[in-house]
Structures are given as C-alpha cells and as structure tokens.
C-alpha cells in the first residue's frame, strides 16, 4: 500500500525551526530526514521514520510556498494565504536572509553579475555550502542590493524596515559597504582573513570615515566615505616628506618603546618604511582605485613586514599606540584631528587583521 498523497494544513501554519534551517541549508528531503533522525527527535516523540518523512515533506512544501513571499518581506506581513504569528514571521525572514560566513567571504567585493552566479558551483565546492543555499544567499544579496540601489538618499533610512533590521543587526551592512566600494578581498594575500575580520573593519570604516560618522547620527548614516576627510588626509604626507618631522617622530617612538619589547631592534630599523607605508595609504585614498586596494595595501605595506620580523600581536599594539600618540607631541604637526580620525581606524583594522 503506497501513500499517493499526504498533506497536513493547519490554520496557523506549522513550522519547525529545525526543518526550516535544513531547508535553508539546501538539504534534500531524504537528507533532512536523516539529520532529524540522528537528532533524536524520534525517540523523543515515539515517531517512526515514515512519520518523520511525511512531516518533513509537509514542511518543505510549506516553505516552498512561502519562499515567494519571503522574496519581498513586507508581503509576508499582509498576505492572507498563511496565518503566521509575527514572531514566526520575523524568524522566517531573519533566517532566510542569513548568510554563511564562508559564503560571504567568497562573494565579498565581487561584482554582482551573472558571471559570479556561474561561479556559485565553485564557491559551493570550496566552502562546503550546498549549491541551493549558495543560490539563495546570492539571490538575496542581489535582491537587497537592487532595492538599495534604486533608493535615493541616505541608505539606511530609506530601505524597508525589515531590510533595515537586517542591515543593522546582521552582515548586510558590511556586505553593502564592500560591494559599494568594491574593496579587493579576493587576492591570495588576503585569503587568510575571515569574513568576520572584514565585517569588523567595515564597521570601523563606516563609523569613523563616512559622512554620517561626523554627525554621530546612526540614523542618517551613509556608506559613502567622507570626501572632505579623504582630501584632508593628503596633508598627513608631511610626516614623511619633512625629514625633521620624520626623525623626530621616530626618536619619540623609539624612546617610548625602548626596553619594552624584544622586537625593538626591528622596529627601530623599519620605522621609516612602516611610517611611509601608512601615510602613503592615507594620501592615496582620494582615488577610488586605491580605496579598493585599501586592505591589500595594509597587508603589503605593514602587516607583512611586521610578520616577517616576527612581531607579536602585543608588539603590534604597543608600536601602533605609541606611533599614534607620539605624533601629537610633534609641535610642527598641525593635523592632529585628521590624524586621529585616520589612525583610530587603521589601528583597529590592523589589530583585527594581524593574526599571530
């Protein structure tokens, strides 16, 4: 006796969070049943494999019917087909628009085009995320991006509330930020960095270098970098072009560091190189192309030399702190405010990016 048809429909739509996650992760029905069996839900409820299969099928069908609505979250709230409690709706949307770190790391900074979609297979193979899940995440990314692109005015304020929640709480904002500025993240030298590293850096950049950052108003925040500030950064060049200033800065830093670290000799020897590297990055940021290379520059000009000299993370912290503070003591250096605004981001980014 074969079961030809088997449906179960509740007035309040029944959704199991666990099954939803399995569906999102791209498991087939049979695989999902296996996972659930291993999870021990059967023993808990004295159910058989058949029951589990039937339940999983029902839920998968429900999710598939829901998916169309999830593509435009505001529809989910006033559609009539499913009666879903608000907290459930929120859960559905939140999970649907969630990203796998591994996946995002791969997509980060890539141009959103059809080409990338073809690469989803590769990404899936590389990260272990199922193709179905990759496609969902990618489509979500494009969907949200499209909405945002079509909006005028400050980004955060104009996007739909649900998207906004995603932005503020989740990883959408860094993702946007990276896509917006097309930061280079795919180079081999950057492979060691995780999405979390980048997300942190993006947060730093957004909260310190964007237009909204100055007003200290999160609501009006924009993801475009503050053009004026970038222009002002050129003034910092004095720190390396003025020979006296450079020497003075070096001696101040060296005095402060002497005896405090094993890597002192290397620090002293490399000071001019490192300082030049950081200041040059600052000076070039007016070019959009150089903005793109921001992270690769940080790694090449600063992190790599330090790593080859075997600095510890503590060394790095110590050095950058004194490097930043000493500049304030230089009496001929007038651009203290710009310097701080620049260095606060550089410091935290490098701390985050410097893995022992």
């Amino acid at each position, binding site marked *: *006796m*074969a*079961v*030809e*048809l*088997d*449906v*179960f*429909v*509740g*007035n*309040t*739509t*029944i959704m199991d969070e666990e099954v939803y996650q399995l569906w999102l992760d791209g498991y087939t029905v049979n695989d999902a049943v296996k996972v659930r069996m291993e999870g021990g839900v059967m023993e*808990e*409820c*004295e*159910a*058989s494999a*058949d*029951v*589990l299969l*039937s*339940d999983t*099928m*029902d839920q998968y*069908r*429900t999710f*598939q*019917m829901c998916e169309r609505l999830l*593509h*435009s*979250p*505001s*529809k989910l*709230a*006033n*559609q*009539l*087909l*499913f*009666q*879903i*409690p*608000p*907290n*459930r*709706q929120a859960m559905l949307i939140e999970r649907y628009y969630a990203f796998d770190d591994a996946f995002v790391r791969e997509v980060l900074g890539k141009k959103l085009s059809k080409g990338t979609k073809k690469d989803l297979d590769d990404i899936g193979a590389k990260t272990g995320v199922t193709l179905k899940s990759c496609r969902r995440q990618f489509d979500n990314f494009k*969907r*949200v991006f*499209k*909405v945002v692109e079509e909006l005028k005015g400050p980004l955060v*304020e104009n996007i*739909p*509330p*649900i*998207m*906004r*929640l995603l932005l503020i709480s989740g990883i959408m904002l860094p993702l946007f930020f990276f896509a917006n500025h097309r930061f280079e993240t795919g180079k081999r030298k950057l492979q060691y960095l995780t999405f979390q590293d980048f997300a942190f850096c993006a947060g730093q950049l957004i909260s310190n270098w964007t237009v909204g950052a100055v007003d200290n108003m999160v*609501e009006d925040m924009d993801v475009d970098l503050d053009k004026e500030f970038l222009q002002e950064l050129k003034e910092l060049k004095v720190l390396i072009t003025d020979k006296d200033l450079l020497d003075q800065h070096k001696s101040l830093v060296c005095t402060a560091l002497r005896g405090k670290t094993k890597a002192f000799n290397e620090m002293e020897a490399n000071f001019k190189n490192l300082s030049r590297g950081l200041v040059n990055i600052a000076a070039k940021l007016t070019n959009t192309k150089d903005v793109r290379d921001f992270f690769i520059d940080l790694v090449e000009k600063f992190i790599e030399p330090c790593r080859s000299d075997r600095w510890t993370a503590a060394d790095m912290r110590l050095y950058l702190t004194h490097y930043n503070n000493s500049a304030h003591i230089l009496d001929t250096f007038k651009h203290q405010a710009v310097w701080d605004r620049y260095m606060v981001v550089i410091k935290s980014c490098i701390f985050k990016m410097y893995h022992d």
Partner: protein
Amino acid sequence: MPGKLKVKIVAGRHLPVMDRASDLTDAFVEVKFGNTTFKTDVFPKSLNPQWNSEWFKFEVDDEDLQDEPLQVTVLDHDTYSANDAIGKVYIDIDPLLCSEAASVISGWFPIYDTIHGIRGEINVLVKVELFNDLNRFRQSSCGVKFFCTTSIPRCYRAAMVHGFVEELVVNEDPEYQWIDRIRSPRASNEARQRLISLMSGELQRKIGLKVLEMGGNAVVGYLQCFDLEGESGLVVRAIGTACTLDKLSSGSAPNTNTHIALPTTSSSPPPFSPSKPCSRQSSSSDTDLSLTPKTGKNTWPHPPLPFSSLPSPSPHCGEFPFFTLTSFPPGFLLHVGGVVSARSVKLLDRIHNPALGNTRSYKLLDWNSVTADEPETRDAWWEEIRQEIKSHAKALGCHGVVGYSESTSICEEVCILSASGTAAILNPRWCVLFARFEEPSPPSCGFCHIPYDELNMPFPAQLTYCYHCRRQKVPDVLFTTINLPQEAAVTGKGCLIQARLCRLKKKAQGEVNATAISNLLPFMEYELHTQLMNKLKLRSMNALFGLHIQISVGENMLLGLASATGVYLTALPAPGGIQIAGKTPGDLSNEHHILTIQKRINDTIAKNKELYQINPPELTEEVVGSPIPEPRQRSRLFRSHSESSDELSELDLSHGKKDAFVLEIDDTDAVEDIHSLLTDAPTPTGFYSCNTEIMPGIYSWTSGVQMFTSVRVFRLSNANLTNQGLNKIFTDLCENLGCVLKDFYFKLRSMIPCCLCQLNFAVAVPEEELIQVAVTAVAMTFDKDQAQEKPADNETEEQLQFPMELCADASSANTQPSSKISGTASVDYGSFADRCSTWLELLRLKAHTIRRGSVKTSRRTQSLGRSRSLRSNRSFRGSPVTVVKMTPLSFLPGTRIIKYLGIINMFFIRETTSLREEGGVSGFLHTFIAEVFAMVRAHVAALGGNAVVSYSMKECMLMENPNKNQAQCLINVSGDAVICVRETDQEPNPSMANIGQTCASGTDGAT
C-alpha cells in the same frame, strides 16, 4: 423592491503581472449581482490599484438577496484582445440580511481563480439597506438565523425547540452539460461554483420559510450537503433544527461551559419570538418550492394561503421529531435509548427523471427548468429512511431522535443513503411536540436510564440498577451519536475508538451492483459493531459518544469506518474482560498460544485502565440486589437497510445466544481480528484524542488551539485483488489509518499536553485502487495539573495569552483601553459594531505606536489620526491582517462568544493542468487547502469576526490524472463566523483583534 445592495471597490494589492512587457497590470473590476453588472475604471499599470469606486447600487428583491451571491471579477484590460480574467470573489451577503448579524462586509478578499488559485487581494465594501416588507405573500425568509453549531449558540437562550426542518433542491450539474465540451475548464468550474452558491442560497431561503411557518426564528445544527450524482444531477440538501432563540444580554452571558440559561417558564406556552415579524403564511408543498425559474420570481405561481394561527406544530415537525443537535441544555434529555440508523441503497437512474430522455441531446433543453420533478424522488428516498429511523426509535420506546445526521456515498450510479441518530426521550418543556408528560428535573444519571419497558425489551439486554441513583435500570453498554451530556458523571478520561473495515465486492452494474452492496451492508455493520464493542471492552469503558459510522462505496470495495469516543459512565456497570477460547481445546501448542494472547489482552486492559485513569469505586453487587450474571453483548445499534426494491430486512446484531466476550480463535480471520485489536497504535504520553466536542474527563482547557485538515490517499498495490489479498489490505489500511493519528501527534508535539477534539474522519474510494482519508480536527491544550478533577466553578486559570503566540507584541496594549467601555450589561448589538470598531481602531493605533518604537521608523509611518474612520483605515495597503481562529467545536476555550455574524458556507473548485509543476498532487492539494482556509478567514474578517466555530469540511473530492498532468478538487466548508472575547475580559480583546501588524509605511519590499 425590498432591498438595496451597495458595493464599493476600494483597492487591490499583490495582483499578478498580466502584461509581460511592462511587468504590470491594467486592472478593472466587474461587480455583478443577479443580471446587473457595474464596472470600475481601469487603473493602469499597477499591481496595487486604488480604484476607490463610487457606490454601485443594486435594487433587488430580498428573495434574490438570499439566493444570489455577489460576484466580483477582477480583469486585466487589453486594448487589442479580449480582457483577461484575473480572478473572482464570491461574497455571500446573507449575513447582512439579519439585523442581529453583521452590518457591513468590509475587508481584503483573496482573488480566486479556479485554475491559478489565489492571485492577489481586493478590498471590497458591501452594505445592504432592507426595506420593511409587509408583503405577507413573500417568498423570502430574511431574518432567520442559521447556525452550523449543533448546540444552542452561546449567547442565546432557547425559548422553544420546534423540531426538524429539511429541504433539498436539485439541478443538473454544469460539468455534465453539453456545453461543457466546448467551454474552457475555467468557465465550467465557475458555472458550477456559481450554481452551487445559488442553490445553497435558495435552499437556505426555503428552510427559512419553513422555520417561519413553524414559528421559529433560527435554525440550529444546520447541515448542508452536496450530492454530486454525475449525469443524473446535483442535489443540495440540508437538515436542521428549528428553534426560537432569545438573545441573552451580554452581561448575563453564560460562560463557555454552560450552554444556555435554563428557561424560566415551564408549563405555560413558550413565548413566541416577537423579534421578527414572522410571515404568517404556509409554505407551499415541497414540489412547489422547487426550482422556480429565476425570471418568474415576481409572479407567484402558487399563491400561498394566509395562515393565521400562532405556532401550531407543522406536519413536518410532528412527522419527524428529529434534532440535529448533539449538545443540549441540562435536563433536556430525559432518557437515551441508543443509536438508531438506517441505510438504503439506491440506483441513480434517469428513470426518475422522465423529463429527460436517454440521449444526451435532450439536455440541450434549458437545464434550469427541466428537473422540476426530481426533488420528489429524492425527497421520497429520504422520507423513507426517516420513517425507518422513527420506527426504530419507537421500538426503543423513544419519541425523539437526537444527534441526527444524514449522509450519502455515491459511486457511479449507486448511492448509499444513510441516516443515524440517537433515540431519546426529551423534556417536554422545550418542545411543543411532547406535551404529554411532565417530569421534575431528572438526576444527572437520568439519561442513562432505559426508556423502554423492561419486560418488553426491543433486544436482549442486560439491565442493572443504576450505579448512581440505584433506583432505575440502566443497560450495561450505551452507544450514542451525541456529545457527552454536561451533567453526566464519568470516571477517568475518554478516548477515541475506531473500527475499520474493508470488504471486496465484485464489479457490477446497475441492479446487480446495488443488490451486492445491500447484501454486504449488514455484515459490515455487524463487524464494525463487534470491533467497537471489543475495543470498548479492551479499554474498560462502557459507553460510546459521538458514534459516527461511515460506509463508503467504491467500484470494487466497500469501506467502513466507525469512530466514537469511549468513556466510562459512572452510572453504568463496569465492563467485564475479554476471554479467548480456542476451538480445539486438546491442542497443546494452540492452548499455549491462546494463553499468550489472553495474557496480552489482560495486560492491555490493565494498562488502559491506568492510562485513562479508570478506577471506579468498587461496588459489591449485593448492594444492588441484582447480581450481574454472565455479561452478554447486545446491541444498541438498530439498523436496517433497504435497497431500491424497497425490500426491508432487519438484522439482530446481538450475536444471538453466543457469549460475546468470548472471542473464539478458530480460523486465521479471528487471529487477524485479535491482532488488529491489540495493534492499535498507542497514543504518546501527553496526547489524548476524541471525536466529541471535548474530551470527557478533561476540564481545564487552556487557550492553545490549532485546527488542521489532513488528507491522505493510499494506493492499493495489489493489481488483482483476491480474497487472500483482502486480509493484507485490511491490516495495511488499519495500520495506515492509525499512522495518520501518529503523524498528528508528532506534528503537534509542541502543544503537549493536548487533546485532539472533534476528530472527524471521512473515507472515500475515489478510484478503483485508491482510498482517500480526510481528517479535520482541532488540537487544544489543557492544564495537566488540573485535568484530574472537575472544577467546581467553570473558571479555569487563564494564563495563556489568547491567540497563542500570535499576539506577541500587541498583548501589552490590552490593559489600558479596557477601562474605556465598561458597564456592558445593556449593550445593544446594533451599536455594538460601531463601538467595536472604534475599539479596534484604538488598538491599531496603539499597536502602531509600539511597533514604531521598536524599529525606530520615524518618517513614513502612517499618521493614523484618531479621527480617521475604521473603514478608510481598513483599506490601507499596509493594514494588519486580522487573526482568525478556526475550530470544529462550538466554542473556543478561554473565550466567550459575544456575537454570531452569520453562517459561512463556501464551495470551491480548483483545477490544474500543470500538476507536476505545482509539486504533484500533494503540492496541489496543500496549496488548495491553504487557499480555502485563507478565503474563509478573509470572509470572517470582512464580517468583523475573529473566529469560526463549528467549522467543518463537508466535502473534499479529489480527481487526478497524473498522466495528463491534470487534477481537479472540490472542497465544501462551513461554519459560524463569530466575534469572541477572552473570558476574563468584559470587552473585545485587543490582542486578538489585530495581530500581525507591521509598519504601515508603504514599503513593498524588494519586489
């Protein structure tokens, strides 16, 4: 010209893309009522059109108002080709015709297409202005209230119960008309939907007339069914109980556990409802009332005679003292005799329809008028069955039949008509029918006492003195079709008991087929009965409530399914055990085998006793004075069947002289029987199930409610079914049916402890090797700790927020405004709707504030001024979706129904020609059922309600043809739309009124 119907089309949303080029739609709306059609302007290039039309006014007869549905069609304008239909909404305006029900219909309706399903939503506003009609010859019955609920509705008091009303109308099925060969499936489906809607309206109107004639003002337990007889036509029939209901003022409304307040008058003639000017006219005869052509409405072909007497019992009422109610006010039932049932096998032959010839071409005739004499045939069939039921009841010494229902099962040209009920003696206080004797309020055990004469018993029965009052005799087992009376004392908890049966029959045609079926029926009933009895004993119980026996006929098999809720009635004697006996006592191995089985049975009984907490007080039989001799099984089940030839046969189900408790193992069949007896899937801990309204023995219901519908189709694998294969199929089927329950337990595990109530199984044999099982039930949570004892008063601990978790963020809004309107004792319901709406408005405002705060939207939130009316507010695109709860029960636990808004009776057809693309049959049906729920909810919400009670799915007929990638499904649902409030609150509860709100700001997401 007694009525003016006004319709306004406000807006649409989420429309489908009709123009591929622009990805947009140029939508307009046609509003049709009767033969009048209005159109809105085209709203170009939008998926969310705002028509904001003028008021379309239809001036119509109230007769038409009752019969016709309002038809709203959304179309896509096309300059060069024909306009494409997007979908339709049928709105039943009946609720607006009753002054006490809804006053306006306003809300978002899903736009439904029979091919594509729901395609967007439309906001419609409907009002009716009724003129006072003094025409005493009128054919309409506006103002008669209809209730699906099979008990006296919660906010009413029964002044008088008049009795049985029935009616049927017949028409030709559009699906079988000649024109169906050339028209599109969509047109055909729509014609069918419209026809059925029309016929339902007409049926309701005619029943209403009968009620007015009897002097009543309402129909309770209204049960309407369709018989799709195929070529021979379409029958819509309905039965119900006519009552005179008085509205209770809201202040004195009883809480959920009491059905109605006891009437104060007893012997004086019951008050005749003055609320409606009842038309004092007789109904014309059945035939006269049958389908009159629509055009002839204004001329009265059969002028009825003026009829001047006050409530004189009509002949119908006297003829069949039947009641479709299943729950009664305390004291209503004096004694209950037992189940009475009758079945009859009929051939659906065109002989009954002489107006039609044998050839198809005759059907070219106007099908609206030719079938005029058909109702007579069908009426005669039912009349015959009712007479039989009546005589059975008489044999049991009873005057009335309660819990009465009728059903059919059709396969090709064979039709089994079934009727069943519970014979009973009723308290004459309520009924004009039984004015013969008067009795003081009976003791709580009264209904168990035998109504028949002890010396002249209709069947061999074992009587003892009542274990409760010790004065009267009671039987040892009691079977009924009603709910457990409220006053009944039970020991422990009840449980669902099912008997399942499958019998092969030879494929045959016509008369031979009918004879074969009618020959099989008695054996099936016998076996079902035996199974029920054994299972009852196995659970150590002594009474069945809500017994429902369904026999479905297929081409090569008959399927029997009996469901009931078993309980241990304290007043009845304890059941004996079950003994196994072998046929060949000498055989040692066999004896050993028997011993093992006996042990298993005894263990099961012991386990069940513990599970259902059945520990009756030990009573020595000496006290009773009548030692209980060897118990014998007997039947409360009176049945007979007759076939078309009117041959009547009676069968004694009492097993003759055989001792029923001894199961003999003499062949493999018996082993199978015992096996199946023991292999009923055990319910997991924390779960209970029953098919009555509530579970006997559980009193502390909390407010978690989940109504569901589940449909399964099994395909029998054996291509050539032999009798050897029968046993296999039989066991398989039983296991699978058991599995259905297991599935429910698993899916609803988050609600534990909970109980599945009003489990309604419907089996059908849609095709040769297919068996379809459709289940509708409600899962309700209860408080485990309080489950043991019956609370003294009915106040249950109300700790759950009412609409489950649905009210997450609105619940905080429910405290402040409750002081706004107090002192509701004298609320008149006319103005109530208005109050209610301002109230909802207030809440909505509050909810918005809350929401706004939480997500910090500052700019584009809708400014909902206090002055804004509810109507305009509702029409906003972002307006919240009202949560509508549905339940097959007559109440929602933890809530009080404050208003009945009218009956919901909807019929939908869905068809697809891309079955695979829609996820196969399962995907297709899943979507359809979800859509049906959505449409029911939308209609209830538009009436201003927040719940559907007494919901049921009467029909779910699925036809598939996977090879052609096609499927079609018909669903008929019904229920009562209500407004309910939390029991603890005096006023409409905010949290249930609007949940699911989000920011109203016009954000359409990432479309």
